[in-house]
């Protein structure tokens, strides 16, 4: 039990988002001796603390663990549980204070070990347990429970409470993902503070009073939050449990490794926990630079996809009777001949390599090397839905710099939907730090509410709207006072990328020393672009490649974990490209519409089944680790590339090729460190040595600023905005049992006033007629959509709105027709 106690302590550390049992904790540099350092006497010995920090934090850093429940280092203290009582020497003798709300002071004398302190701590623990059901044996938290653990380490051991305990209906679902057991709840205010302070979703609240106080939602209004899983992680008892994990395992059966979430490109630090070689849970790990311990629910729960029964388990080759499983040797030989034939028939120009942003740096680098060997110039890690690689050449901001900038300019998609934890950081910046958010957006976003100014633009006109704003005295003054970070991304998939680039250009011209944080979405898109999967020129990018394929000029289309038929905004082009490509080689973890059309499918290992490194939007490189054995006979992408690299005859990797003798993932990491200037010295050791990973150097790429003017919209049309929701048909969500049904579904949203004008009701089906095609969708009245624009979520199934997108066009205008 005693050793269990210690790892419970560690788990409660994870709960609080401090570093888990990984080396870095030790390797952290010692607190610098700065002007606001103070000396506190703790149980007779002098310790150095930082002005403003609380006694409990200073003590814990010095190895004096003070029991506590409500205190959480990332949230405002409330002094609610009273467990952290200590004695502080005061003018009138020692005073009992809560150490979580008592700031350190120079010369302060603190005792955590007096009889009164002990009596108070034991007494309070007894009181906390008085109404607690003590159902630890059947509780998910049992074994990693701060209450259970501290009852053991700081409690009286037994209770005199013989009264009838408080009774509530046993666990009730407060959302699709979270259950609440009010009998176990100790009312520490952690979940409710999180919902209020951190997530801004005040949907759970204390209700009733005194001994009847309970956490509750409003009747029939569930705790619908993209961040609800965090409340489960920080709950110091088993009151909040997560549906995907309930009753799956006991903590002592779990073992864990620290990794990085690659669901989106924020790169939140996690621990991956598994039992009996099955992934069971991800927990957030506190990274000062990145996620402060938080995760979004999509990233937290999509381990279910890795465990999905729909996974590809072995390579497939096309036969008369369709795709059949085969051995690696025959699959690789099939792949080799696909490449050889394409080279023979059409030369390197006829080969295109798309995707690669979902894997590790090692995967991307290895496939880029293979593409080099083949000589394929068509390559792109994005799918016509991002920004030119040139944005990575701009002066790059870190997340921390963005979250501490005086002005944060948003020229980006809805960050709450696409980069959720970046949304938390920026919201915090506006709410707590007083950063001013200047938002340019075609619709209301999650951050609109917290923006200093939020300016709407009609798709295509952002450059003009930005320039008008820059001409405004107040805005100009704000931008010229203090640091400015622009968060730049693609707010609208139904609009030419040039519209956004032009607006960025205007900002660059007006604000000389601004920094840019690219809001690109796919997990490792920055790594993939930096490591060789970027188009050599824009007539060689994904769109160009797919157009070439549609024109029958592509002999071999290599798809690295992408499915153009679902991922490409332009449905028609995707269809024609897949049909027009003579041969398709697909590397993927799941069967998809595109793999169905492939000649050879190479089954890849998934997240959690392979080790390596990943690069987030800042360029921060951090580890991803293999926690469970790869499914079936699947292999990591990099390994597949390395093996093919040896099978290309005179184009094979030579003996002096950096990957010639790569046998393990860190051979590849080492090769990257040795050959890619911006990754110089970024070895696996270096990346794991610091809790916050390593920042890769700048990559040199120019952002060509094209002039752009959008055609004017005729009054009968609506201008189309297509953006992403957190939950869509992306395979990782689709294949996660708990998440799949959270996708809102396809619909066309317009302003209620417009609905009235057109004379259709909320929910009616309408036909949308555009230059490119038509789509039938239900109408939604949505006040957050500006008049004259029509907003639709991307990839919600059925490929309807995607039929209206012409990726080559400047913008898309659509007419709304009543049906019948």
């Amino acid at each position: 039990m005693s050793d269990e106690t210690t790892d419970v302590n560690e788990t409660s550390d994870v709960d609080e988002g401090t570093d888990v049992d990984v080396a870095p904790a030790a390797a952290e540099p010692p607190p610098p001796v700065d002007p606001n350092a103070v000396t506190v006497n703790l149980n007779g010995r002098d310790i150095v603390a930082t002005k403003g920090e609380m006694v409990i934090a200073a003590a814990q850093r010095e190895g004096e663990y003070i029991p506590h429940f409500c205190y959480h280092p990332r949230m405002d203290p409330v002094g609610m549980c009273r467990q952290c009582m200590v004695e502080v020497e005061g003018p009138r003798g020692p005073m009992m204070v809560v150490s979580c709300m008592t700031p350190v002071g120079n010369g302060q004398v603190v005792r955590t070990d007096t009889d009164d302190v002990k009596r108070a701590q034991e007494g309070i623990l007894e009181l906390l347990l008085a109404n607690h059901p003590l159902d630890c044996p059947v509780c998910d938290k049992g074994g990693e429970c701060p209450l259970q653990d501290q009852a053991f380490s700081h409690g009286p051991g037994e209770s005199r409470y013989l009264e009838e305990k408080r009774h509530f209906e046993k666990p009730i679902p407060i959302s699709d993902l979270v259950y609440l057991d009010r009998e176990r709840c100790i009312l520490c205010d952690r979940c409710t503070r999180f919902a209020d302070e951190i997530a801004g979703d005040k949907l759970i609240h204390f209700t009733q009073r005194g001994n009847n106080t309970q956490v509750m939602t409003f009747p029939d209004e569930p705790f619908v939050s993209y961040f609800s899983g965090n409340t489960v992680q920080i709950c110091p008892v088993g009151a909040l449990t997560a549906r995907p994990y309930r009753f799956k395992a006991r903590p002592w059966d779990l073992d864990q490794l620290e990794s990085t979430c690659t669901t989106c490109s924020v790169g939140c630090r996690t621990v991956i926990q598994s039992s009996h070689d099955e992934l069971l849970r991800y927990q957030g790990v506190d990274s000062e630079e990145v996620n402060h311990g938080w995760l979004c629910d999509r990233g937290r729960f999509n381990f279910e996809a890795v465990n999905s029964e729909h996974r590809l388990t072995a390579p497939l080759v096309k036969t008369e009777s369709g795709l059949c499983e085969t051995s690696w040797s025959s699959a690789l030989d099939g792949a080799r001949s696909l490449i050889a034939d394409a080279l023979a028939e059409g030369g390197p120009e006829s080969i295109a390599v798309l995707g690669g942003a979902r894997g590790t740096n090692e995967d991307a680098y290895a496939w880029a090397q293979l593409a080099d060997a083949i000589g394929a110039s068509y390559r792109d890690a994005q799918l016509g839905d991002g920004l030119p690689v040139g944005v990575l050449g701009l002066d790059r901001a870190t997340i921390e710099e963005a979250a501490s900038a005086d002005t944060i300019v948003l020229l980006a998609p809805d960050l709450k939907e696409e980069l959720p934890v970046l949304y938390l950081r920026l919201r915090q910046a506006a709410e707590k730090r007083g950063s001013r958010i200047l938002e340019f957006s075609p619709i209301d976003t999650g951050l609109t509410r917290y923006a200093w100014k939020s300016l709407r633009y009609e798709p295509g006109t952002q450059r003009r709207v930005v320039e008008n704003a820059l001409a405004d005295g107040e805005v100009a003054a704000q931008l010229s006072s203090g640091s400015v970070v622009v968060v730049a991304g693609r707010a609208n998939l139904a609009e030419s990328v040039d519209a956004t680039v032009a607006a960025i250009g205007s900002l660059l011209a007006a604000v000389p020393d601004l920094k840019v944080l690219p809001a690109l979405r796919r997990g490792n898109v920055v790594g993939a672009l930096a490591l060789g999967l970027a188009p050599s020129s824009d007539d060689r990018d994904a769109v160009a490649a797919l157009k070439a394929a549609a024109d029958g000029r592509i002999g071999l289309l290599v798809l690295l974990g992408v499915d153009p038929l679902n991922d490409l905004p332009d449905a028609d082009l995707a269809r024609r490209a897949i049909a027009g490509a003579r041969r398709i080689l697909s590397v993927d973890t799941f069967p998809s519409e595109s793999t169905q059309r492939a000649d050879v499918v190479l089954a890849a290992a998934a997240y959690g089944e392979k080790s390596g490194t990943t690069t987030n939007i800042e360029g921060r490189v951090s580890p991803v680790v293999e926690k469970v054995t790869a499914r079936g006979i699947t292999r990591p992408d990099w390994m597949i590339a390395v093996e093919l690299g040896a099978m290309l005859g005179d184009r094979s990797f030579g003996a002096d090729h950096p990957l010639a003798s790569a046998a393990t993932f860190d051979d590849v990491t080492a090769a990257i460190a040795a050959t890619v200037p911006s990754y110089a010295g970024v070895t696996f050791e270096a990346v794991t040595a610091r809790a916050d990973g390593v920042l890769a150097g700048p990559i040199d790429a120019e952002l060509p600023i094209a002039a752009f003017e959008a055609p004017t919209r005729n009054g009968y049309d609506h201008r189309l905005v297509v953006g992403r929701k957190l939950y869509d048909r992306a395979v990782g969500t689709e294949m996660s049992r708990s998440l799949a049904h959270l996708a809102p579904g396809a619909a066309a949203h317009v302003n209620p006033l417009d609905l009235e004008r057109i004379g259709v009701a909320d929910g009616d089906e309408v036909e949308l007629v555009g230059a490119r095609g038509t789509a039938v969708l239900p109408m939604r009245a949505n006040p957050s959509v500006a008049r004259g624009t029509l907003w639709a979520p991307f990839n919600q199934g059925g490929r309807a709105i995607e039929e209206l997108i012409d990726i080559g066009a400047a913008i898309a205008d659509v007419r709304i027709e009543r049906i019948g």
Partner: protein
Amino acid sequence: MSRLSDHNVVVADEIISRYPKQKSALIPLVHLSQEQNGYVTDDAMRHIAELIDVTPAEVYGTATFYEMFRFEPLGTYLINVCGTMSCALLGAHDLMQHAEQKLGIKAGSTTGDGLFTLQHAECQAACTEAPTLQVNYRHRYRVTAESFDVLIDDLRAGRLDGEIPPHGTLGRNRQQIPADRRVGAVHPDDVTGAPGWVQVTVS
């Protein structure tokens, strides 16, 4: 349909305007809705949330903290019999027993005709006049079995309608701040310096 009536929305907007931050109007607005409906409905809480730009959960969380807010229908007359020390010392217990007999219900319940809800209550700031009770929070002092019976009969006969409005109404009048004399509430962030009348005198 128990959102605030159009008339009460106008009242609510004026109340909101009295406070530097609109959430301060939460409790007054819940009172207003209880005055309108006799108790606090879910729709009213949703409506109030809209009016002061908070979530319904916040309204619910605050409202359920306070004893005077009731979330199910109750009698026209809420009878609170004080049981705290001063009244306990002078016969609160017997008074409650008598009340239960007279009304034919147990404390905590409502008479069949929906006229009276009887309940235990805590100190009513009338300790020298014990034992006391309140009818819709209107005090009754040194209450005896006899005076209790008279009270109930008077209420039944409507003889006290002028003095005691149905449950939910706090005061029978409401403060009216005349537009021409009102200083107006300012959000603290928008206050730059000392009030004008201070600057001239305070350094």
